[in-house]
């Protein structure tokens, strides 16, 4: 064959025509020389195991497929894959001369969904975490009720961050969101997520959300890495994992203080509902006002009962108290919707309805005390 260049044969030089085997051989040689062995990810189809022990099948994805062979010497310790199974194949691309067919010679085959190298690594990592007590449910910390600084370790461009911020905006804009941008897939993802989680320790955050939106098992694998799980465990504040997937938990989920099914769910778990908290604060305000007015009523009743046994000093103190009460009430009044304090004042009136506000106003006559829920007849004890 010598130096014949497949692509430079002069057109029309029929004498120089190659035989079929020559052209396919050259194609094979080009392919063999031009391709190093590579890992290929795909789905098994048309799987067939021949009597010889060799396996023939196709690998495919949504857009392409390619024929594959795996020789008996390479497959004999492996369980036969099934059609539809997702696998990783370590292959040498070549051309099958007899058929003029491009194909992959598979040297290693790892199911990507079970029993594969990844799963073995996962099982090992899980055992190591278990041994170190990192999977102990007793380690799990409660989330803060009113976070003011929420750290989010995720991709700055992903849907996950968008979803988290949307929920936090609605429920709890009170908090500042501190986004620690990291890649969540690809070769650098593990390193970046670990570094991001370490950085959180310096942020003075109250709680952390770490995760990403849904993806394939391979895309989510970063969150199954032991180093990532250990970094989660080392975060000094509670961590919510939000790795978008419905089925298996990742190692990150197992180590996190709380697992959320999606980034949005994580945000809901982390943030209280502002409307509910405003309602709670209003209730405190109301109870505060009622609590005080209860005291004031009691004080005035005592004053009334004590009558002229009150000495002048006591009278001045009551005046001062009333003055402060007036100021406090004015401030409370400014805190809409609180106007209930007035309802709690006890007002003493004589039979003509005149307000009795000084000891000297009280004669020997009966008077009425108006309190929150009605009036009572009273009489100075003289």
């Amino acid at each position: 064959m010598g130096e014949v260049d497949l692509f430079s044969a002069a057109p029309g030089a029929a004498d120089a025509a190659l035989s079929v085997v020559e052209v396919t051989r050259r194609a094979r040689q080009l392919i063999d020389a031009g391709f190093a062995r590579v890992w290929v990810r795909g789905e098994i189809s048309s799987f067939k195991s021949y009597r010889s022990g060799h396996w023939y099948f196709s690998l495919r994805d949504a857009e392409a497929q390619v024929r594959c062979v795996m020789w008996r010497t390479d497959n004999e310790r492996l369980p036969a894959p099934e059609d539809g199974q997702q696998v990783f194949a370590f292959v040498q691309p070549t051309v099958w001369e007899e058929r003029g067919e491009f194909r992959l010679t598979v040297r290693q085959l790892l199911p990507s969904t079970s029993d594969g190298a990844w799963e073995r690594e996962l099982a090992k990592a899980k055992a190591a975490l278990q041994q170190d007590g990192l999977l102990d449910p007793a380690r799990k910390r409660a989330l803060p009720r009113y976070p003011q600084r929420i750290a989010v370790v995720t991709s700055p461009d992903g849907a996950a961050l968008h979803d988290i911020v949307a929920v936090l905006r609605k429920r709890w804009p009170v908090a500042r969101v501190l986004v620690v941008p990291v890649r969540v897939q690809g070769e650098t993802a593990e390193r970046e997520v670990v570094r991001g989680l370490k950085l959180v320790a310096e942020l003075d955050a109250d709680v952390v959300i770490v995760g990403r939106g849904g993806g394939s098992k391979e895309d989510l694998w970063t969150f199954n890495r032991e180093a990532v799980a250990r970094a989660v465990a080392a975060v000094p504040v509670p961590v919510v994992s939000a790795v978008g997937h419905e089925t298996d938990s990742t190692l990150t989920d197992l180590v996190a203080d709380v697992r959320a099914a999606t980034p949005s769910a994580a945000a809901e778990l982390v943030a209280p509902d502002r409307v509910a908290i405003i309602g709670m604060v209003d209730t405190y305000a109301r109870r505060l006002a009622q609590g005080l007015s209860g005291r004031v009523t009691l004080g005035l009743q005592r004053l009334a009962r004590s009558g002229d046994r009150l000495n002048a000093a006591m009278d001045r103190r009551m005046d001062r108290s009333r003055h402060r009460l007036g100021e406090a009430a004015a401030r409370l009044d400014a805190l809409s919707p609180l106007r209930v304090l007035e309802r709690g004042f006890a007002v003493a009136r004589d039979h003509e309805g005149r307000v009795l506000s000084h000891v000297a106003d009280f004669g020997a006559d009966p008077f009425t005390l108006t309190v929150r829920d009605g009036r009572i007849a009273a009489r100075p004890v003289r």
Partner: protein
Amino acid sequence: MTDQPTFADELARLEALVRQLEGGELNLDQALKLFEEGVQRLRVARELLERSEQEVRRVIREADGSLGEHDLEV
């Protein structure tokens, strides 16, 4: 952690004030003191709750090793 009282602290103190004011024997003077503190705490809590613009910051390690916060549009 910061030295400033947190929102959780404010609410917890408020709750304690309310309970004290509602129960127990207090003279008017003590009641007023609790009330006034309560009003103050309410004001702080409400100011926090009324914050409606969420701040979203991107945190990165600067060249000098410090942490920088930058506004982030999401």
